[in-house]
């Protein structure tokens, strides 16, 4: 007993084996590098997955709008992906991608696709027909019509979908720890395996903070890109 007390005195950090506190300032300072690295990896994986999803989802949405017959198939495909459990998605990809970050990026991107295709399609379809006709009457070509008229008008709906996709991708990235590229999820798993509470809680909280921050960033971006909507609400 005496030995234990001495050991505790020698290592006052609240994250020592003896106390195992949930919240520990000393841990945050000591392991700052580790936490920053994991957060950076988390952000990189999340952002690349979202970029990948947007790049794939946009042509899919355009195709589905252009050819209504494809719409059911496109939506069915992207929704079907959702029935594959997140835990199974990464092992399913490993035979093709190996143990690399691209496994996680691909998997998360496929998940985000569901939400993005749906919102892009909805946003584009909601552009009033008379607006499109007047643009055509003004001599807008198909490309110019899309970029200058339809996309800006569809932006609020698309951004709403992007926000949902972003927040859930941040949360899902943690599962990437299964293939050792889970960002903060790696710390969470390490926390469980070594029963290290300070690490566990810090990583979990960072994850939520990250999701809220990215969401706020998107809201700001949307406000900057659609200045005309601000007057309406006020």
């Amino acid at each position: 007993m005496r030995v234990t007390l001495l050991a505790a005195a020698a290592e006052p950090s609240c994250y020592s084996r003896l106390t195992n506190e949930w919240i520990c300032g000393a841990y945050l300072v000591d392991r700052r590098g580790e936490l920053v690295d994991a957060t950076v990896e988390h952000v990189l994986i999340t952002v690349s997955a979202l970029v990948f999803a947007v790049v794939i989802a946009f042509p899919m949405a355009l195709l589905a709008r252009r050819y209504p017959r494809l719409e059911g198939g496109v939506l069915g495909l992207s929704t079907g992906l959702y029935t594959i459990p997140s835990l199974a998605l990464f092992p399913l990809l490993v035979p093709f991608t190996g143990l690399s970050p691209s496994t996680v990026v691909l998997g998360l991107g496929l998940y985000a696709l569901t939400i993005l295709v749906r919102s892009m399609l909805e946003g584009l379809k909601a552009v009033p027909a008379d607006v499109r006709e007047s643009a055509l009457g003004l001599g807008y070509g198909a490309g110019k019509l899309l970029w200058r008229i339809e996309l800006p008008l569809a932006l609020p709906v698309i951004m709403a979908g992007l926000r949902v996709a972003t927040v859930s991708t941040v949360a899902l990235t943690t599962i990437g720890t299964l293939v050792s590229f889970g960002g903060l999820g790696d710390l969470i798993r390490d926390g469980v395996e070594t029963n290290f509470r300070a690490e566990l809680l810090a990583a979990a909280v960072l994850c939520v903070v990250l999701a809220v921050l990215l969401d706020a960033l998107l809201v700001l971006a949307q406000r900057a890109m659609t200045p005309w909507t601000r007057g309406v609400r006020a």
Partner: protein
Amino acid sequence: MTVLADTWRYLTDAASWQGPGGLWARTVEQLLLTGSALVLAVLVGLPVALYLGHRGRGGFLAINISGVGRAIPTFALLALLVTAPWPGPQEFGPYGRAGLATLLALMLFALPPIITQGYTAIREVPDEVKESAQGMGMTRWQQFFRVELPLGLPLIASGVRLALVQVWATATIAALVAGPGLGRIITEGFYRSNYSKGIAAAVVVALVALVLELGAAAVQRALAPVPREPQQADTVRESLSGT
């Protein structure tokens, strides 16, 4: 693709379905976990959501719970629950310690869609219908049970249905903390580079998800107060408000 052939062989081999860690036993475990988590979430979330919808208050809360809930990684929640000194004993019925933690994490995961949809369902019953019910002399209880609840039921059911499939697929992450369910077979196959085994379990998960989805859709259709045609719903509305 030899992996796919091996997966088929694993799925059709009777031996892989038997025993305590077999596909069959794990499927039952996961169904039990999913079912109880969903029942708990409905018991906890639905009364709150319906009450808020009926009073027409707390909309901000009900809608934002969904956003906040999505931001919390289920894995982090699960990890916290497994490491925490509670909930209770090492063994807890058919669930086990890790299973109990998963049960709670899944319940919290299922709450947002149930609360948001339940609230919206009651809130969006047209005002004129509510007013005519009031005009007919119904008490608040009668208004709620005989008008608002039946009309909101399809949307409430769609929230529960959404939660059901999500909870079922997410329940596999119990394996990350050595809990029950098909996730165990997925991770076992993965860690031992026996990919066909992992893929086989994933296929079972996806198939059951499909069955659950179709079953839930059938239940939802049966619950519609006025079957199928939206025009009929309008006539009911008109006949009520016309009195």
